[in-house]
C-alpha cells in the first residue's frame, strides 16, 4: 500500500474501507479511547517524574488574591478585608490537612471543620467562613470563579467580615500535582481590636520562613503545561474527526453511495458540541 493509498484508506470513503473512512470506523474510535487513556495517564506520570519540564503551570499569589477580593468588595461599597496572619496560618493548616488526609471539602474525613483550624491558629471569631479552590492557573481566575458562585460570592461580600487569610499550597491529590487555595474569613470577637491589629503587624514583622511561604503564593512555569497539552491534543483529535466526518458526508452525498451507518450530521453536531465544550472548559474547581 502506497502512502497515497493509506491516506485514502484513512480519510476518504473508498472500496478499500467499505466506503467509510477508516478513521470513522468503530474500531478506530476504540483505538482513540485507548490512546486518550494512555496519553492521559502517560503525561500525568511524566509530570511526576519531570515536573519542571511537563507540569502544572501556576501563578497564584496571596497579594493578587487579596487585591482582587478587596476590589470586588470595593465595587459593592464594602470596606477592604485586612490580611490576618492567624487566619493565613489556619488556611495553611487546612490545606496541609487536605493533602495529608487526601480530601477536598470543607469538612475532613475525621470531622475536621474550618472552625477548628481557625480556633487552633489562635483566632477567636464571632463570624467566620471559608472558600476553597484547586487547579487554577491564575489568581484572578480563582476570585472570578468564587464570584460566579452565589455561596462563595456571599462569603466575599459579607459585610460582617473584617479579616482574611490565604494559603496557596502545592501538593498531591491521588498522585496528581495540585495547587490548593484556601481563603479564610473572620471577624474577631476580641474587644480589643486595636491590640489585635498591633499583634498582626508585630507577627508579620517576625514572620518565620513558613509564614513567608504562606504569604508568597505559588508560581511555577514548566516548559510544557500538562493541562494545555492535554486540551490541545483533545481539540486536535476532535477537530480531525469533524473534518473527516464533513469530508465523508460530502463525498457520500455527491457519489450517492448507499451504506448502513449513522448519519454524519448527528455525529458532527454531537462531536462539535463537545469540541466547543472542551475548548471553553476553564481550569479549576471550587468548594
Amino acid at each position, binding site marked *: 500500500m502506497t502512502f497515497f493509498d493509506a491516506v485514502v484508506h484513512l480519510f476518504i470513503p473508498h472500496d478499500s474501507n467499505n466506503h467509510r473512512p477508516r478513521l470513522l470506523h468503530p474500531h478506530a474510535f476504540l483505538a482513540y479511547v485507548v490512546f486518550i487513556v494512555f496519553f492521559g495517564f502517560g503525561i500525568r506520570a511524566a509530570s511526576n517524574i519531570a515536573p519542571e519540564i511537563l507540569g502544572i503551570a501556576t501563578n497564584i499569589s496571596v497579594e493578587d488574591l487579596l487585591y482582587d477580593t478587596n476590589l470586588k468588595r470595593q465595587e459593592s461599597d464594602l470596606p477592604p478585608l485586612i490580611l490576618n496572619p492567624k487566619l493565613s496560618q489556619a488556611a495553611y493548616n487546612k490545606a496541609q490537612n487536605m493533602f495529608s488526609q487526601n480530601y477536598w471539602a470543607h469538612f475532613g474525613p475525621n470531622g475536621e471543620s474550618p472552625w477548628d483550624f481557625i480556633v487552633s491558629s489562635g483566632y477567636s471569631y464571632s463570624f467566620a467562613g471559608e472558600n476553597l479552590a484547586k487547579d487554577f492557573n491564575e489568581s484572578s481566575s480563582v476570585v472570578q470563579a468564587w464570584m*460566579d458562585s452565589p455561596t462563595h460570592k456571599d462569603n466575599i461580600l459579607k459585610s460582617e467580615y473584617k479579616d482574611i487569610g490565604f494559603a496557596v499550597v502545592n501538593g498531591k491529590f491521588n498522585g496528581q500535582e495540585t495547587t490548593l487555595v484556601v481563603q479564610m474569613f473572620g471577624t474577631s470577637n476580641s474587644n480589643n481590636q486595636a491590640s489585635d491589629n498591633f499583634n498582626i503587624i508585630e507577627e508579620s514583622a517576625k514572620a518565620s520562613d513558613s509564614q513567608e511561604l504562606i504569604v508568597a503564593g505559588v508560581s511555577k512555569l514548566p516548559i510544557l503545561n500538562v493541562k494545555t497539552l492535554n486540551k490541545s491534543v483533545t481539540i486536535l483529535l476532535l477537530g480531525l474527526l469533524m473534518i473527516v466526518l464533513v469530508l465523508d*458526508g*460530502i463525498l*457520500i452525498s455527491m457519489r*450517492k*453511495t448507499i451504506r448502513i451507518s449513522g*448519519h454524519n450530521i448527528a455525529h458532527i453536531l454531537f462531536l462539535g458540541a463537545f469540541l466547543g*465544550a472542551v475548548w471553553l472548559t476553564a481550569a*479549576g474547581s*471550587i468548594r
Partner: protein
Amino acid sequence: MDSRKLFDFSHHIFHYLVLTIILVGGLTAFFSFRNYPVIQFLIGIGISLTYVLWGIIHHYIDRDLSIKIVIEFAVIAVFVIIILWNVLI
C-alpha cells in the same frame, strides 16, 4: 437507506430539532456548572447516553436500525466520555 439523507435535514427536521435541544440544553447545564468538573463530567455522561438513545430511536423510526448502528453511536459516546474524563477529572 437513501444516501441523499446524509446531509438532508428536511426529512427528519423534528429529530434534528430534538437533538439540537438535547445538546443545547445539555451544554447550558454543562457551562452553568463551570468550576465543578465532577458535575460537568456527570452531565457529559448524561448527554452522551441521551445521544445514544436518540440515535436508536431515530434509526428505529427510519427503519434502518441495526446492531452496527447501535455500536457506532455507543463507541462515539464512550469516546466523548473518555475525552471528558481526561480533560475534567
